[in-house]
């Protein structure tokens, strides 16, 4: 009875389509399979007819037996055609159903496949601005689960048609036999529908409560387990246990309530159907006594009730499940239809770049109304290493993101080697761009696969050379299996520093003209940190580099430091020049870089004996 819980996980929709629009698009996906769908429809009708035939034939058989009285084998022989028909009907009903399910599985499988490919294409084409708004989990569930739910619309509709057909056929037969008795029998319909709907409403409420308390139990256990070290160190296990027992008892109470509510729909519906049987038995029997119907027909009425009430509960649940399916397809289409923000004016193949970057009166905002850059101008000559510094929100990362063309700017021009970035074919442009993220992403596979990512054509020697060129390659020795070390999902299992080293090797292999590097803020063990710094020197040499700098050693060695504030350049120069000038950079140094110095020692913290002089 999944329908009772259906629709609990609704999300906010990003876009609203009318039901007609949605249906038209859904139907569009099924159009290539039109022939098969029509055949399925035919099978459904045939299956329904064969199923409805069974009680009718039984009823005929009973009347036949009664008409002839008890006369030996003749009773059987006379009814042989009816019996053979029954066997045939059973066989046909099963065959029709078999074909219907097998064909439907193919159609649904193919439609979901096509749809998934379409959504996937749409997803990878979205720009980075899009991924700021949508978490990975949400996008993934749209491609995997929502597409599956989408196909539910079809399976559900087919099921509904089949059940409505059975009910309708039985309905017609009953009314053709005796209107009064048929009316009494079908009086059960609204009662069952009403009960099913009422249950759905109650179940949703108790389920929500139970869900909440379940989350609470899980949170409690999670806290106990994560904090067990602390609890043990301080010997506080009993306090944790008492806390847990309280939440666990509450979870039991609400879980039981939910379980009882959900389960009691079966006795209730069964009871209503039972009352229906009582009514049919009494009034049917009276009708037989009055001569209004035959005993076989009476039997048919009693039997039909069973055929009747189960489909009815499914019909009651159909609408909400159908709505859930539509909502899922709405989410799928919304993802496909999102307007990209980054719009290229052309798709010119990009020549081999020198790496000169020029911002000309660039205006940029993530959200309309809160500008980040307003009339920004900057020229970075080819081959220069530029360190961007400034407080959070100064616009450092924005510059990198615009150069990587992850976001669209509103006004002005961004020129690479004097060419408009908007006219580029992005794939060929990005081949000449190296990006090192703050927390580099690694894919499942070996370190070797990860260095090679995006350059599938690179030879083994090239990969090895790139790895060896980063910090002399000795970082590979501290990995369990060197280049063959397996990475689990997302890069867990190796340290943040090692991930950065892999990312640097990746850039070396790619040999781009421009490098954009977002330095890590996380703390990294001192030796790995030294290796990263050595690796940076190799990677940045001879390329135009834009570094969003957090490390003291990086700003020190940059060709040019640019101090940003609120999207404007306040100061620029080298570390020594700017520090001597005693301006904004000196302030930033005091705020962010001072403590990274090895001679950093806040006042009065250590005795003089503990502070040996540095060498030289």
């Amino acid at each position, binding site marked *: 009875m999944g329908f009772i819980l259906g629709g609990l996980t609704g999300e906010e929709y990003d876009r609203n389509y009318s039901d007609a629009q949605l249906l038209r698009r859904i139907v569009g996906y099924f159009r290539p399979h039109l022939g098969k769908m029509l055949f399925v429809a035919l099978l459904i009708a045939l299956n329904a007819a064969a199923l409805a035939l069974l009680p009718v034939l039984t009823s005929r058989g009973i009347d036949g*037996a009664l008409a002839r009285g*008890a006369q030996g084998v003749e009773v059987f022989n006379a009814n042989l055609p009816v019996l053979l028909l029954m066997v045939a009907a059973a066989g046909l009903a099963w065959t029709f159903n078999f074909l219907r399910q097998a064909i439907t599985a193919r159609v649904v499988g193919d439609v979901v496949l096509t749809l998934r490919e379409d959504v996937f294409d749409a997803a990878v084409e979205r720009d980075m601005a899009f991924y700021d708004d949508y978490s990975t989990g949400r996008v993934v569930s749209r491609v995997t689960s929502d597409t599956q739910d989408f196909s539910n619309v079809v399976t559900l509709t087919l099921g509904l048609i089949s059940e409505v057909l059975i009910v309708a056929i039985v309905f017609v037969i009953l009314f053709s036999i005796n209107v009064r008795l048929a009316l009494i029998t079908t009086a059960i319909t609204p009662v069952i529908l009403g009960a099913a709907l009422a249950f759905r409403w109650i179940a949703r409420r108790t389920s929500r409560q139970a869900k909440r308390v379940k989350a609470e139990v899980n949170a409690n256990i999670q806290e106990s387990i994560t904090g067990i070290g602390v609890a*043990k160190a301080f010997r506080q296990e009993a306090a944790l246990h008492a806390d847990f027992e309280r939440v666990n008892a509450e979870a039991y109470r609400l879980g*039981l309530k939910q379980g009882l509510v959900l389960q009691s729909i079966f006795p209730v519906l069964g009871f209503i159907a039972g009352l229906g049987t009582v009514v049919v038995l009494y009034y049917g029997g009276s009708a037989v006594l009055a001569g209004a119907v035959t005993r076989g027909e009476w039997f048919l009425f009693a039997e039909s009730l069973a055929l009747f009430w189960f489909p009815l509960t499914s019909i009651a649940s159909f609408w909400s499940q159908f709505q859930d399916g539509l909502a899922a397809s709405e989410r799928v289409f919304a993802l496909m239809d999102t307007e990209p923000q980054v719009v290229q004016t052309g798709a010119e193949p990009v020549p081999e770049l020198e790496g000169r970057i020029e911002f000309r009166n660039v205006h940029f905002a993530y959200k309309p109304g809160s500008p980040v850059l307003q009339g920004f101008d900057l020229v970075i000559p080819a081959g220069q290493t530029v360190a961007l510094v400034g407080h959070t929100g100064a616009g450092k990362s924005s510059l990198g993101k615009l150069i990587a063309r992850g976001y669209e700017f509103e006004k002005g021009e961004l020129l690479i080697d004097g060419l408009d970035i908007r006219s580029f074919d992005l794939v060929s442009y990005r081949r000449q761009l190296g990006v090192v993220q703050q927390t580099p992403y690694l894919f499942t596979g070996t370190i070797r696969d990860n260095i090679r990512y995006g350059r599938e054509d690179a030879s083994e020697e090239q990969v090895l050379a790139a790895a060896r060129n980063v910090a002399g390659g000795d970082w590979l020795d501290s990995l369990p299996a060197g280049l063959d070390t397996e990475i689990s999902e997302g890069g867990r299992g190796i340290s943040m520093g090692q991930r950065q080293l892999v990312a640097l090797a990746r850039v070396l292999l790619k040999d781009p003209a421009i490098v954009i590097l977002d330095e890590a803020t996380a703390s990294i063990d001192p030796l790995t940190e*030294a290796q990263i710094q050595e690796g940076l020197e190799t990677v940045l040499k001879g390329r135009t580099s834009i570094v969003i700098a957090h490390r003291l050693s990086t700003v020190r060695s940059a060709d040019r430091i640019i101090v940003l504030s609120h999207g404007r350049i306040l100061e620029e120069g080298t570390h020594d020049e700017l520090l001597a000038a005693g301006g904004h950079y000196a302030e930033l140094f005091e705020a962010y870089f001072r403590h990274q110095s090895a001679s950093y020692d806040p006042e009065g913290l250590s005795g003089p004996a503990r502070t040996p002089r540095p060498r030289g």
Partner: protein
Amino acid sequence: MTTPAASTPTSEFRVDSAHTYDTSTPVRWIVSHVSRYPLLLVGFVLSTLAFAICSSLVPRIAGLAFDAVDRPDAGQALLTLSLLLMGVVFARGLADFGTINSIERLAQRLERDARSELTTSLLGKSQAFHDRQRVGDVMARAADDVRQLNLMFSPGVQLILDSLINLVTPLVFIAAIDVRMLLFPLLFVAAFAWALRRYSARLDPVSTAMREAFGHLSAGLNETIAGIELVKAAAAEPYERRRFAQNARAFRDQFVRQGDVQARYLPYLLVWLTFAATFGHGLLLLGQGSISVGELVAVIGLVGVLRGPADLSIFTFAMVQMGLAGARRTLALINEETELDENPEGYAGVMKGDIRFEDVTFTFPGAEAPTLERFTFHARPGETVAIVGQTGSGKSTLTKLVNRTFDVDSGRVLVDGIDVRDWNMESLRQQISVIEQEVFLFSRSVRDNIAFGLPGATFDQVVAAAKAAQAHGFITELPQGYDTVIGERGATLSGGQRQRLAIARALLTDPRILILDDATSAIDSATEDEIQTAINAVLKGRTSLVITHRLSQIRRADRIIMLDRSRLVDQGTHAELLERNELYQRIFQRYD
């Protein structure tokens, strides 16, 4: 019923009122849980039986009514039978409610008790055990596996028992009418059992393959989307597209295969054929005068009852399977030995804080290479020792040997000249404090968190500790000051703030040995000033082992030990190492 818990032979924590369960096998374990509630169990079986009997009575009464219309007092008989049927329908409804009430209660209690047993057992395990476990895995067991036990009974066992009884009672009723009429229903039961087995054998591998294909599809996609920035930067969209299309097609193929197997579900056909065959058989007997029309109608109706068991989904069996698998995993966790040794007779005294490692080698269970090899060093009381080395070089492991989170394989670790294995565990741990890299705080108030190790501490003591840890300032700026609740539903704190709360927590218990895994990174120098002041406060007057990434802290340490791939490669003061050690020079190369 209340005996002391003995589910784990050694445990650091136990609940006196806890029930004892048989943890030898999953089935016995479940049985010992369920048998705590014999009344519910009996109630469940009896009400299921009552329900099945009532269900079979319905067609029987209908059959009687069929024969009654031939009788002279037909009207009266019809009314009586209808009222009787009404009574049966009521009784059936009550029995149905009874079933649900007992099984649901039983299932929910099973979940509650098993979760409680598991959690209690987890609290009693050693720290070394918990270090080996991934929190996610343990959570999965405490949440999902335990939940599977619930589902295993409601609806799993419930439906299976229900189907079994509903398979048997109609047969009994049919036999009561005429034993010969059993012919086809019995054939059906045999064929049904065979068909179900065959179906299950075919569906199982396909369903598994489909689940795997889906897992593959979503894991692959998850990776592509999580790494989308890289995908774009590497211009690898075509490659990712190919990979996705492959996975999506593999899933489609399994989906179709599953559809084919499901479409071939035979019991539906079998029950209809039985229906026709029994009807024919009944007509034959009717012709011989062996049974009445009403009895034929009753038998046909009883065959209809068999439709219920035929509808029994294969999923029900899967639920029981999953419940057993869940029980197995949960039990594995409960039964896992913990290498704990409380050593209550061991040495207990005031610690001075002298730490000595003598030729220590340690290998993680199951690992090939040792994490620490032939390791020797000495820290005098009050000394600050900085441990430097790459991730994975054994720094944290080394500190965990001091408080006996792990025990050495060979060599000795001595505290105050006494082997840590000869210390009373309680006394040893009470005087050693550990500040982890990722500070754990409970979802409680700031005050309770600081006083966690000393629940009786006065507010003044808490504030004094917070002040020394440079935490007082930011605490008073929180919405409710010291009463602010931390955690998901409360205030979120930065890494630096969490670390200072942990320092305050440690200061309050005044340990003799401090182990500080200091990987917290402060972005700005002002915060760093506070953190350093706090750290210095906590290091003062204690023997401290400090794992740090901060160059300035390394410099200031009394001694530095350098690890490289599980070996101690050098030790000395900053000046000494800078003079002679190449690796050490490389670290400081860009800074001085």
